[in-house]
């Protein structure tokens, strides 16, 4: 005949004694580890002291570029110059036409300016 030799389970008092021992047996936090945690906590602080940079839209980016060249007055001048350039390109005045046609019909800069190479590089005289 088989007998059950398993011991009787612990009672509540036994279990309480084990839990009490486990509570006492918990190690303390290492002070060096605590110091590291404090350093990490300070490093994790939200950066509220530094002013946040506003997000720049297209206009903001343009403002920054214009500021590099002297602000909006200079920007306005630049824009005007650009517009005049476009007008001249699309509908050039006669004087401009004369100069460009003269330029593109000549073979060298010296002819256009009326100064010959001989005047500049007077090899034989030197």
């Amino acid at each position, binding site marked *: 005949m088989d007998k059950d030799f398993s011991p009787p389970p612990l009672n509540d008092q036994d279990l309480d004694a084990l839990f009490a021992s486990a509570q006492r047996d918990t190690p303390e*936090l290492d002070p060096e580890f605590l110091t590291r945690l404090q350093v990490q*906590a300070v490093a994790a602080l939200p950066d509220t002291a530094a002013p946040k940079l506003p997000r720049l839209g297209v206009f903001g980016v343009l403002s920054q570029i214009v500021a590099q060249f002297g602000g909006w007055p200079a920007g306005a001048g630049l824009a005007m110059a650009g517009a005049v350039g476009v007008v001249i390109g699309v509908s050039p005045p006669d004087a401009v036409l004369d100069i460009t046609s003269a330029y593109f019909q000549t073979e060298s800069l010296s002819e256009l300016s009326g100064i010959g190479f001989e005047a500049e590089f007077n090899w034989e005289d030197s």
Partner: protein
Amino acid sequence: MALDASQNLEDVELLARFAQGDRTAAQVLTARLAPFVFTQAFRMLGDRAEAEDVTQDSLLRLWHAAPDWQPGQAKVTTWLYRVTSNLCIDKLRRRKRHSGEELPEMPDDRPDMERRLQDRARAQALRAALGDLPDRQKQAMVLRHLEGLSNPDIAQIMQISVEAVESLMSRGKRSLAHALAPQKKALGLEDDG
């Protein structure tokens, strides 16, 4: 803010100051909460190094949560219990996938050596038996019998009903009572009787 004044503030007030960039609040809150988190983690894991990992991770999560913390949402400690428990369960599951559990070695430099040795032996036996419980049972048992929390608090932390907590603890206690029965004499429990 001055250190002394910060010591008297509630956790949630310190956390609000932390969110505003207060260094003192960060240091005071860490000194207050780290031992609490570490103790809970160690009791669940039984390993100092792993408990330190969990402590570090839990606190980092708290710091990240600080700016969006709603004062009425939960006690800081309840929130930490939940995060720490979950991180410990993750560690336990990972550990089960690997080799057997090794019990930690701890320095023994206190007086009352005999009592300390008995506590050590009992704590190790208990941790080993707890380690064999299903994770949720273990979590409930640690929170109730080692951390000393009430059943409603445990229910809130584990996000289950109080009845479910009672059920988990009843089964956990029964399992422990049977698992540890063969060691009763060796653990000196008959002398307590």
